[in-house]
């Protein structure tokens, strides 16, 4: 039972890690390798606001999300725009920017025992004999809300539809008056905001450390690749596979093997079915 529940929570956490990454990729085809860095950056922004400016967590959390979104937006205009359309240069630039952010944070001293965001509600309940804290239930709920909200947003709002048009065909989108650079920048801003939201709900589970950024990136990549990039269904499937895989590996093989699961999954999927579980035919052709 605990396997079931904690597997679910682990999966939702992975989905939260990934949702911003795959939104950005789905809309503008940009694999944002600075995703993990933005995630943890938002955590430290919130922490700084709380501790330096003395704001309550609710306010600083929201501010952190907005600031991260703005950083994502600026990031596009300052850096990505100049290498747009060269996938490899995009990858290297985002990756390098992410590593630079993480190393700068380490250098600034955001590495230690005192960085932690408070949980929303203290305490916990018992479900079917398994102890679970309210924060994890909040993570579960927000994961659900975010995925559904994203679906509604993409399918039922004007800007969401513009996003979809863009995702399907950039040239057509241009011809009906959708500015691709704006959409690209917005997609990165939304991706960054989602990363920040994930950070706000997931980070209170533990303490913060700049190196989390690397892990988040790898988890996001693992989920996105295993499920098939940019497919929402694939993202959900990917996070469940890896999430349960990790918990099961920890329980039945040995806890050390948890970290191997996502890495092995990436390598396995890319070498066997590069388009991922729910990837479409088109992607397969492009990748191989």
């Amino acid at each position: 039972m605990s396997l079931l529940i904690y597997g679910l929570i682990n999966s939702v956490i992975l989905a939260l890690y990934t949702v911003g990454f795959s939104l950005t990729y789905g809309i503008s085809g940009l694999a944002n390798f600075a995703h993990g860095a933005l995630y943890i950056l938002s955590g430290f922004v919130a922490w700084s606001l709380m501790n330096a400016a003395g704001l309550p967590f609710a306010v600083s959390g929201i501010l952190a999300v907005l600031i991260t979104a703005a950083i994502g937006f600026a990031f596009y205009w300052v850096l990505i725009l100049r290498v747009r359309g060269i996938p490899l240069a995009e990858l290297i630039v985002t990756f390098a920017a992410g590593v630079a952010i993480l190393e700068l944070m380490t250098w600034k001293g955001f590495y230690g025992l005192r960085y932690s965001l408070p949980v929303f509600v203290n305490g916990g309940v018992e479900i079917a004999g398994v102890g679970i804290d309210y924060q994890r239930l909040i993570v579960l709920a927000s994961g659900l809300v975010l995925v559904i909200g994203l679906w509604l947003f993409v399918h039922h709002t004007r800007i969401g539809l513009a996003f979809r048009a863009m995702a399907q065909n950039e040239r057509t989108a241009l011809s009906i008056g959708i500015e691709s650079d704006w959409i690209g920048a917005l997609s990165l801003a939304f991706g960054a905001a989602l990363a920040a939201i994930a950070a706000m709900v997931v980070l209170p589970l533990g303490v913060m450390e700049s190196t989390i950024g690397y892990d988040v990136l790898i988890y996001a990549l693992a989920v996105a690749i295993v499920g098939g990039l940019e497919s929402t269904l694939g993202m959900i499937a990917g996070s469940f596979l890896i999430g349960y895989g990790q918990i099961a590996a920890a329980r039945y093989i040995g806890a050390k093997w948890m970290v191997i699961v996502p890495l092995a999954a990436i390598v396995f999927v890319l070498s066997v079915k590069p388009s991922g579980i729910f990837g479409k035919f088109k992607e397969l052709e492009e990748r191989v």
Partner: protein
Amino acid sequence: MRRGAMIFSGIFLLAILVVLPTSQAATVKPIVIGVPTSLYTPFGRDGLKAVNLAVKEINAKGGVKVGTQRRPFKVVIADTRGGEPNTPVHDALMAYERLITKEKPDAIVVGAFRSEVLIAGMDLVAKYKIPQLSTIAQSPGFQKKFMKDPKKYKYLFRVTTDALVDATYLNNTLDILKKKFGLKNAYFIYQDTLWAKAFSGLMSRHCKKTGWKIVGFDGYAAGATDFSPALSKARESKVQLIGMVWDVPLGAGVFAKQYAAMKVPALLIGFIPPMASPMAVKTLGPGVEYSMSIEFPVGASLPLKKLPKTGDFLSKFKKEYGALPEAAAVNSSAYDAVFILANAIERTGSLNPDKLAAALEKTDYAGVSGRIRFNKQHIAVFGTKDPKKEGVCVIFQWQKDSAGKLKRVPVYPAFLAEGKIQLPPWMKK
């Protein structure tokens, strides 16, 4: 391409500025102490602060007497990067070597954070013949390598505790718990790195010998972020005690919070930095109550009434830097190391490494962490008996005081204890 050229020349200018030596009008040549360590880990950061504090004190008194002349200390630093095991060891060695060849330190203190860097760096230090008093890494691998060629490695000393000592303290506490409260189911979790594994291995072996039932013994990778498998297993199998050894902040923090959240009805004991830290209540919330942790050696972050020196050191530290050290480990060792070095220099009256090493061997210094002498393997003698005879550690528990505020209360050994071990109410039947 003018812009590109400008950027490049800019980078080069910056480089030149950085390498240019800063001129100093020093009349007396200072004694240079090198501090190569992972400056961004709490251990390295606070270790450096402790060193600076000691140096300031010594210099205020006019410095160290070398022969007839009084010379001040000067601290030079090098960042060996990374608290995680995945930062390159070669790079750390390079930083070490740069420090040694460029700054020409007369001695090195603090030293590596990760055991593998300490051990890999031993050859380097021996090659350049620089006395080194390392104060962070706890791996017993040090002694093992030392004994292979004691002559070659004679410049290397370790001032702080060894994982073996830490484990003895915990084992003795386990004995008390067993006797006093009749606990018998234990679960061990450790960070899958060398010293932590050695540490927890000693604990579990001791438990096996003394009649505990070991329900689980799990190594988690240093980057682990979910401990629910172990915690749910512990919960299901009615574990009464969880032993945990960890040093990377991240995993320990998640564990501490998750342990509290999942309400595992077991007593927590071990070395969990965020939980032992003076800031634990602020960082992790009230869930830390009743958890027990070791501080090695004494004086790292917890002022003890029965050892006034620890209080002195920590109040000076707090006055200088505005807060207590973050981690409940090794800070007092870094402070002591500087004094031990000064002491040895004054005794031998020379900075010659061979003479200095010989003088260090004869060290007998009453420091913050107890009386420091070195054994044949060049590690400081630590024990559980008497701070006047050896270095000591302490085990404390988070308890509520009369005002309901959470405080760290020393509970073991008896000569340091200020309170009794309390069993959480949810464990009493």
